[in-house]
């Protein structure tokens, strides 16, 4: 029977349809049961079979990957096999438990070694252990393997390792129960242009793999088991949406100029080199937020100066226009596999972003040197995240100065007048915006964190998600304060949060005088289209009126007009 569900917010727009594919969250803890002597042989055979399957899979993967080649060696290793066999035969442990213990022992052995490279290999061993464990438990190590028809993935949540395993020829859309519009899956879906809904509570109970789904992330509906007539209607809608997008794109090579001649810049937010390439094709005039974290998070150690330099150089050579690199922004919900963060009561109010950089000076200097060296190739700018004071900005710039002197001494070229700016995402930075404006080269407003900190609302917490709203008068007035402070000292003000591409917010931001809008590359064409149809003078009047409103409802009402 056909059933329709309405969803409040689309994480990534588009209309797609396909069979439901409900991803199962697997428990990989070993069965702790002891076995009888008579079961030993059976357990050993099970283990051998699981290894054989893992080896076969890895052999295919190893052909074009050094990582999987190393995994293959581990899977075939005699030490691993001997230890498991011993545990089964002389300790009467079942194959799962024998494997779990063996992997833990080998991992401990590697982690205790006095060699960084080898300590990192512990991760390979764990991964192989996981793969064999999946075999023992009879579950696929990649749940998205073997999909060969159009599907909509329905999952509790999707991690980067999940999305990395997906074949997007067939996976057409996502519906997840966890996550907000700023979570990994949302950001990924937008950059890949995969329509998605996130934070759809308890949705998995509504569907099985036998069902068919229409995901309308434009009209914000999920239709389960539509009849043929409905499918036809949505096929038409999908075609219309595509045509509209094509129209947006037809003017994407023109500047973002309003009907009365005000021109702003449209930049892209990126989280990888592939994203930079994508940004260029989608009409970005620069990179407003280069999330350098990926260099750290997709690594098994702190990235070297050379690794980072290569990435930054590639980015500026690909973009050929300004690239604003945000220095390492970890902590909060972003961790590193190779660095132990202490448990914190309030990670978002804790040791993160610039605070970490100023404490781990060597790590920071490595990044700054890499950025400086790449600045010899184009207009690279540096942006410090989570700034709460002029002091922090000065401290960061003092370290930058040290790096410059080192490079100068060694005759390594760099751009001596490289611009440095701050991300405005704390209430403190808003209140000190004028002081900051005197010393920085530019501002970029990070509305995701700014909203969370101004309203004291955790943006990942579903229970209070309705309170998280960037149209709150406090947020709007904060944005205006920052723009005015920047302009008072002739500094350009940009925005690199989700808000910058919000259709409702764009006229307000334009009217407030925002100079640069940085967004997911997929949003650039429609935002450009919108701005080219707006009148700056009208938007200024609108922004003035909006900032006088005292409730979100009044703001919304004004925007509807």
């Amino acid at each position, binding site marked *: 029977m056909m059933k329709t569900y309405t969803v409040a917010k689309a994480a990534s727009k588009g209309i797609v349809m396909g069979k439901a594919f409900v991803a199962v969250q697997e428990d990989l803890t070993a069965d702790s049961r002891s076995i009888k002597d008579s079961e030993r042989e059976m357990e050993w055979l099970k283990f051998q079979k699981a290894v054989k399957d893992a080896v076969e899979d890895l052999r295919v993967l190893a052909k074009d990957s050094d990582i999987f080649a190393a995994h293959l060696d581990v899977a075939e*290793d*005699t*030490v691993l096999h001997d230890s498991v066999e011993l545990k089964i035969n002389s300790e009467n442990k079942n194959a799962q438990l024998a494997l779990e213990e063996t992997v833990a022992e*080998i991992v401990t052995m590697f982690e205790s070694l006095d060699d960084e490279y*080898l300590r990192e290999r512990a991760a390979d*061993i764990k991964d192989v252990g996981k793969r064999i464990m999946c075999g023992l438990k009879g579950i696929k190590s990649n749940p998205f393997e073997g999909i060969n028809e159009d599907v909509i993935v329905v999952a509790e949540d999707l991690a980067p390792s999940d999305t990395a395993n997906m074949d997007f020829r067939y996976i057409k859309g996502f519906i997840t129960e966890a996550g907000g519009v700023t979570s990994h899956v949302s950001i990924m879906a937008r950059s890949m242009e995969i329509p998605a809904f996130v934070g759809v509570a308890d949705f998995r109970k509504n569907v099985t793999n036998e069902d068919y789904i229409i995901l309308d992330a434009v009209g914000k509906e999920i239709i389960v088991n539509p009849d043929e007539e409905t499918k036809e209607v949505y096929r038409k809608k999908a075609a219309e949406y595509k045509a509209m997008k094509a129209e947006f794109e037809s003017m994407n090579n023109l500047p973002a100029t309003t009907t009365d001649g005000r021109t702003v810049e449209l930049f892209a937010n990126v989280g990888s080199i592939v994203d930079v390439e994508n940004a260029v094709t989608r009409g970005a005039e620069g990179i407003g937020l280069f999330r350098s974290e990926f260099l750290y998070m997709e690594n098994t150690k702190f990235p070297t100066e050379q690794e980072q330099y290569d990435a930054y150089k590639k980015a500026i050579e690909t973009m050929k226009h300004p690239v604003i690199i945000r220095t390492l922004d970890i902590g909060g919900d972003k961790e590193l596999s190779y660095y132990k963060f202490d448990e914190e009561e309030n990670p978002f109010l804790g040791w993160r972003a610039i605070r970490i950089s100023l404490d781990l000076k060597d790590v920071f200097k490595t990044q700054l040197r890499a950025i400086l060296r790449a600045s010899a190739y184009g207009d690279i700018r540096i942006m410090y995240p989570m700034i709460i004071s002029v002091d922090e900005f000065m401290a960061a710039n003092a370290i930058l100065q040290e790096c410059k002197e080192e490079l100068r001494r060694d005759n390594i070229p760099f751009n001596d007048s490289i611009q440095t700016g701050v991300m405005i995402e704390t209430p403190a930075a808003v209140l000190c915006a004028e002081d900051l404006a005197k010393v920085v080269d530019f501002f970029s407003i990070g509305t995701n964190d700014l909203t969370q900190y101004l309203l004291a609302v955790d943006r990942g917490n579903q229970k209070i998600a309705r309170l998280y709203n960037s149209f709150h008068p406090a947020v709007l007035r904060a944005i205006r304060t920052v723009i005015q402070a920047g302009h008072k000292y002739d500094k350009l003000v940009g925005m690199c949060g989700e808000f910058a591409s919000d259709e409702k917010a764009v006229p307000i931001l334009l009217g407030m005088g925002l100079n640069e809008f940085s967004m997911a590359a997929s949003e650039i064409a429609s935002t450009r289209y919108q701005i080219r149809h707006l009148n700056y003078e009208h938007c200024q009047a609108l922004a003035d009126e909006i900032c006088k409103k005292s409730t979100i409802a009044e703001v919304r009402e004004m925007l509807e007009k």
Partner: protein
Amino acid sequence: MVSKKVVVTNKTGLHARPASNLVAFCKNYNSKIFLSNGEKKVSAASIIHVLTLGVKTGTELEVIAEGEDEAKAVEEVVKFIEALED
């Protein structure tokens, strides 16, 4: 039992590829082959063991073989280690 010493001279030591290639090479012999760095003696048939030796460039290793083709094995494994690149 036959043994012979050799100094590892390739840049990365017995890491990743070189270690993997060495383990694969040792499987060509019927003899049991071991590597020793003076402190620890491990089976050369196990990548996990070879890696845990932590052999860096400049390390002196002893190649030890026991079995029917032990003399040939030691000779050729030593040559293999000497010829390692990267």
